[in-house]
């Protein structure tokens, strides 16, 4: 089956609009705590999730909203959950890091790497009770250094568990560049754990759809787990209000908060030799500078623009679709916010 770009785009745009609305509510203070968006990784999610059927399961990380939404969880329930309402998806008990839908066999966790064991367990249950069903684990590149994720790739390999391990590699774990924290090569690592690896750009929804489709077919047929390694960007950085992004976007306001402490510290009497101090400063500055030069800032990496470009040959249908989705999201907001929180 060839990829249907229109429906992939619809999924992605719906998710994007939903998460942008979420961001607004977060900035308005209606959503508490941290907020990690999946914006920028929509092509990976859409390309994988649209292959899933009833009985397939998902194990999600701290960035689980997009996958839940695209899998078919009611956006109204999601939004109510973010707002902490009693009639939210989890009764207001979970929040965006702990989204659970029993109906969709989908579970999230804020513990980095725990998606590995979780997907393995879902897949084990599938082996017994739902032949042909699979489990997908979505996680980041940083998670690849968490032991339990590696352990579960090995476990899936030897038990031939139907797991698709999807690494959404944005090159970062919060403010840590993966190239400075990850040795070797992730694909070789997966293979060294007995899991075949496929590596590709995650910005191209059609490409993801094709690759994931082939992989999932093999997994369904009982061949064991596969590792998909897909690159992506996170436009907002790690979470909403992310400090380095704030500095880059509004240096005049944000830089002083950081610079005063730095200046005082670097000039303090006791401490390392000047060369070490400068190395330290370079270290700090480079994380801001890297953010400035970040692929995050390059719209070419936006999976939505990428897909949209391919659809512009039919501008009427495109406009219709986009208008409709915008209306849908506005409707959702109205339904949810129109009600009084309990």
């Amino acid at each position, binding site marked *: 089956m060839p990829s249907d770009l229109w429906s992939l785009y619809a999924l992605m745009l719906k998710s994007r609009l939903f998460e942008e609305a979420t961001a607004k509510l977060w900035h308005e203070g209606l959503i508490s705590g941290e907020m990690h968006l999946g914006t920028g990784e929509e092509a990976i999610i859409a390309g994988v999730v649209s292959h899933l059927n009833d009985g397939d*399961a998902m*194990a999600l990380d701290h960035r689980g909203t997009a996958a839940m939404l695209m899998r078919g969880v009611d956006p109204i329930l999601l939004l109510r959950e973010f707002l902490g309402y009693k009639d*939210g*998806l*989890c*009764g*207001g*008990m*979970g929040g965006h890091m*702990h989204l*659970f839908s*029993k109906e969709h*066999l989908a*579970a999230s*966790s*804020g*513990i980095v790497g*725990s998606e*590995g*064991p*979780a*997907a*393995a*367990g*879902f897949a*084990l*249950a*599938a082996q*017994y*009770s739902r032949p042909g069903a699979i489990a997908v684990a979505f996680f980041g590149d940083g998670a690849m250094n968490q*032991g*339990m994720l590696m*352990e*579960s790739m*090995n*476990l899936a390999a*030897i*038990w031939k568990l139907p797991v698709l391990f999807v690494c959404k590699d944005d090159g970062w774990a919060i403010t840590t560049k993966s190239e400075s924290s990850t040795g070797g090569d992730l694909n070789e690592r997966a293979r060294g754990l007995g899991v075949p690896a496929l590596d590709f750009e995650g910005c191209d929804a059609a490409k993801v759809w094709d690759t994931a489709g082939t992989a999932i077919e093999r997994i369904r047929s009982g061949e064991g787990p596969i590792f998909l390694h897909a690159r992506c960007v996170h436009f907002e950085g790690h979470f909403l209000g992310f400090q380095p992004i704030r500095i880059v976007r509004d240096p005049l306001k944000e830089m002083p908060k950081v610079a005063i402490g730095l200046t005082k510290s670097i000039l303090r009497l006791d401490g390392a030799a000047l060369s070490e101090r400068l190395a330290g400063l370079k270290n700090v500055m480079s994380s801001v500078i890297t953010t400035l030069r970040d692929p995050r800032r390059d719209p070419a990496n936006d999976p939505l623009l990428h897909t949209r470009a391919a659809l512009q040959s039919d501008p009427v249908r495109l406009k219709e679709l986009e208008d409709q989705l915008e209306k849908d999201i506005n409707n959702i907001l109205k339904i949810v916010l129109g009600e009084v929180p309990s």
Partner: protein
Amino acid sequence: MKTMFFTQAADDALAQAMADDPRIVVFGEDIPLVRRDLLVRFGPKRVRGTPISESAFLGAGVTAAMAGLRPVVEMYMVDFFGVCVDALLNHAAKTEAFSGGKWTVPMVVRAPCGGGYGDGGQHEQSLWGWLAHIPGLTVVVPSTPADAGGLMLASLQNNGPVIFLEHKLLSESWLEFLGSGARKTVSYDIPAEGAKGEVPSKWEPIPLGEAALRRTGSDVTIVSLGVSVHRALEAAKILEAEGISAGVLDLRTVSPLDKTTLCKAVKQTGRLLVVDEDYETFGLSGELSAVVLEAGLSCKYARVCTQTTIPYNRNLEDQALPNVERICTSVRQLMK
């Protein structure tokens, strides 16, 4: 009536449940050997070995339970939860709450625990109080074959995660495996009543959270669990000869705690001695005093617990773990 060894009873109840319920699967390191009797009856699909990857397979147990299985996940020893307790702390224990009560984790985690055979501080811990501190976990510690079977059945029927701890000194198969099977030159202080005893012909569940009064007594209530229950009973006999009447209450489940029975017993005697092989501070022994005070009761209170890392030297070990002598001394002190 039939008699059985301790672990044999737990396995037998498990087998009975497995015959009734195809959703029950058992896995853990070396389980094809450790549960070989289950393996030849239920086949290698339901009784599996794992790599030394506790985080992976314990975590997998959680979601396997969520997706419809009833996994019995086996840890080599309770001490090794250190490498994987996240699966309990942040997942098994919290899923029901996080999902707004919509999704439960019917998993049994089975682990040998306890000391008294010379394996040293990383292999002889109890840790039941440590685990019970986490809201959302049920923690079971049987002290007799009949309880091992009945509580196993109840654990398998429970809708939330249950940690089922078997004291190695009661377990014929663990002791045989860990070194006594190959030599007659070592002896352990094994409580006969705990290691082997009467069992029903068909297993019935013993409700979780119900303590059992093993002995009535009017002067002091000794509250205990696991092997220490038998130490307490032995001590009570000695004390009886001295004219002290000591009751012995076997908690059987740490969490939920049978507060009613506890308070009733303490109210009658006015004296509470906790005998707890787990570490003394910030755990079960303190909790019992809090429960009593919260109930508006007052009592004289003492405890005999493990205070330090468990020494390897067998003599030091015997002194570090709760023993009959320490119990008697404490009771006599309470009677002053």
